[in-house]
């Protein structure tokens, strides 16, 4: 699905990623954890194609393409989806209009015809159930006046509508209460298949009670310094990150 090799990146002269390696196969869920400032959100931003970051070294292959050569929208057309940590408000643009435009752009890129209004609305009804999204939210402006929980659920709703190959969830659990967390996790689990993959970026183990990862990676100081299974997440929850930092420094 995606393979990241020796990725180095900096912003405003400061190196954030310092040789990151990660390989994700179809059907897998990977969790990336790490302390503040480790480079977790940077990784998400670079994968999605934020231009502020300068890639100094390394390569990323996504579905056989050189990801770093593609524009943000081309990456989306190939099936890369980022659930934003801070979803943006777009006043006056309804959620359904926004999604219909997005879906048709993606279809157009694949040489497909636009989706019919009927099929589209059926899809909205079906997918909004997955995240228990009130149908009124679908017709409201994109994220405008949404609560924190609604914004995150809307991200997962969009993900359901766009049906990506690789979804990167950037701190999707931040600011969620336990009910919202459960709904979001249920959505992600429902969408999981043998043909897609998910990268869950998170600070806390909590989300991983609901979205069970196949692999847990610890990102520290711009590199993945430890990889394990769900047990690793539990250990991090219990002992914090200090032991990782010590291990890394010793190593």
């Amino acid at each position, binding site marked *: 699905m995606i393979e990241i090799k020796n990725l180095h990146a900096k912003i405003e002269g400061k190196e954030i990623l310092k040789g990151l390696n990660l390989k994700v196969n179809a059907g897998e869920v990977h969790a990336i954890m790490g302390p503040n400032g480790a480079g977790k959100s940077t990784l998400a931003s670079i994968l*999605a194609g934020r231009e502020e970051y300068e890639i100094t070294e390394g390569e990323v292959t996504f579905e056989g393409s050189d990801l770093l050569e593609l524009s*943000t929208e081309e990456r989306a057309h190939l099936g890369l989806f*980022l659930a934003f940590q801070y*979803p*943006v408000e777009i006043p006056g643009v*309804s959620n359904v209009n926004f999604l219909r*435009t997005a879906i048709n752009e993606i279809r157009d890129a694949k040489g497909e015809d636009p989706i019919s209004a009927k099929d589209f609305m059926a899809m909205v009804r079906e997918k909004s159930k997955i995240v228990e999204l009130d149908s009124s939210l679908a017709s409201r402006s994109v994220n405008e006046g949404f609560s924190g929980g609604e914004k995150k659920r809307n991200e997962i709703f969009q993900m359901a509508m766009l049906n990506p190959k690789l979804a990167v969830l950037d701190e999707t659990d931040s600011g969620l209460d336990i009910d919202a967390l459960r709904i979001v996790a249920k959505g992600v689990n429902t969408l999981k298949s043998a043909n897609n993959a998910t990268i869950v970026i998170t600070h806390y183990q909590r989300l991983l009670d609901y979205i069970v990862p196949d692999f847990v990676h610890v990102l520290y100081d711009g590199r993945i310094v430890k990889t394990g299974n769900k047990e690793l997440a539990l250990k991090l929850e219990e002992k914090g990150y200090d032991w990782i930092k010590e291990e890394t420094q010793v190593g």
Partner: protein
Amino acid sequence: MAQYTENELAKDLDKQDYKFGFVTDVETDKIPEGLNEDIIRLISSKKNEPSWLLEYRLKSFEIWKSMAEPNWAHVRYKKPDFQKIIYYAAPTQTKKYESWDDVDPEMKETMAKLGISLEEQKKLTGVAVDFVMDSVSVATSFKSKLKELGIIFCSFSEAVQEYPELVKEHMGTVVPNTDNFYAALNSAVFTDGSFCYIPKGVRCPMELSTYFRINAGGTGQFERTLVIADEGSYVSYLEGCTAPQRDENQLHAAVVELKAMNDAEIKYSTVQNWYPGDENGLGGIFNFVTKRGICETNAKISWTQVETGSAVTWKYPSCILKGDGSIGEFYSVAVTNNYQQADTGTKMIHLGKRTKSTIISKGISAGNSENSYRGLVQIQKNAHGARNFSQCDSLLMTDHCGAHTFPYIECKNPSAQIEHEATTSKIGEDQLFYCKQRGISEEKAISLIVNGYCKEVLNQLPMEFAVEAQKLLAISLEGSVG
């Protein structure tokens, strides 16, 4: 409404240049350039006008000569040489067409390019179109249906011939010829325009619409529109403009007068897309327009405008809320790109008790353009319980454009409530990135965001106009984020 139109935009987005920059080759009957009493007499006689109208023109000319061109607006331009303008041009084939088949094929083609083929409009929308090419109306439809209801909708010249007493009674009562420099000029030299009268208690069953188009090179256009809604009547009037590409500046100084009698309502919508000049600021239309309406008791006038064209715009559609309980509304989107300059807004003059006004202005500046909102809310001393709400938002697309807001408030009655909100924002990189991450191209993302920003105004437009307006916004702002 909005959700099915963005996709259609894509096709139009392919064309980067001004879409309507073509010239129709129709023989034109011109009079010599320049302005003096003889020219005015010539215009009047060519139009076979009654003597009172000639006198009105000559008096207006005297007034105009005593006035100076205003320069308080936040715009800079080379002042037109009024002696270099041709004040009258009419297609030579002046006789009225019996049927649509008789219309010059080339003219039909022009209309097709504008997307306003009458055949299509007849079938699809039920819009009666009074098409003004240069200064004379050449096609009018749906007249008979309107006639049954007693509605008069015709060219101004025709109204002068057919309904002289109505014209004489109302013309110049909202915008007097002493009002301002351009209004005085228009009153002296106006060639044609539209006239509309809705009788008492009649609700006009269709949108009335006029398309203006400047054609003959170097011809100024001086349109005159008069809409009278008699007691308890309702009319929605649409005005849309496009012009061919020109290198020399062309002056347009129109006068629009609206009269809403007791309990009447007039909705006046404009989509304006005159040639704005090229990307270096060369050429383009000067649009100096005086638009004003008077509301009698419990009457309502609503102005909606989407302004994307013209090199220089100077325009303040206004309401005089004379009757108690009357309502004035102004919804505006003004887009400026490249070197365009717009100084536009409204005046709400509250005279009657419990009068209400709403102003929603959305300015969008791109390129090196300057976009100003200028508005006056005036509450006179008898306007007890008057209320106004104003919202003026500015959206900046680049770092080198300008947005300015000049709100004037004069309140002489302590019971009045006045609210004013203003915001300025730059189109968000974060918003664009969010759209792109979802697979939406930058151009389409801009159109989506801008249309969302203008939604409150676009929602006021009749359906088919709203679609056209959305397209115009997208075309006007192509490649403009920086």
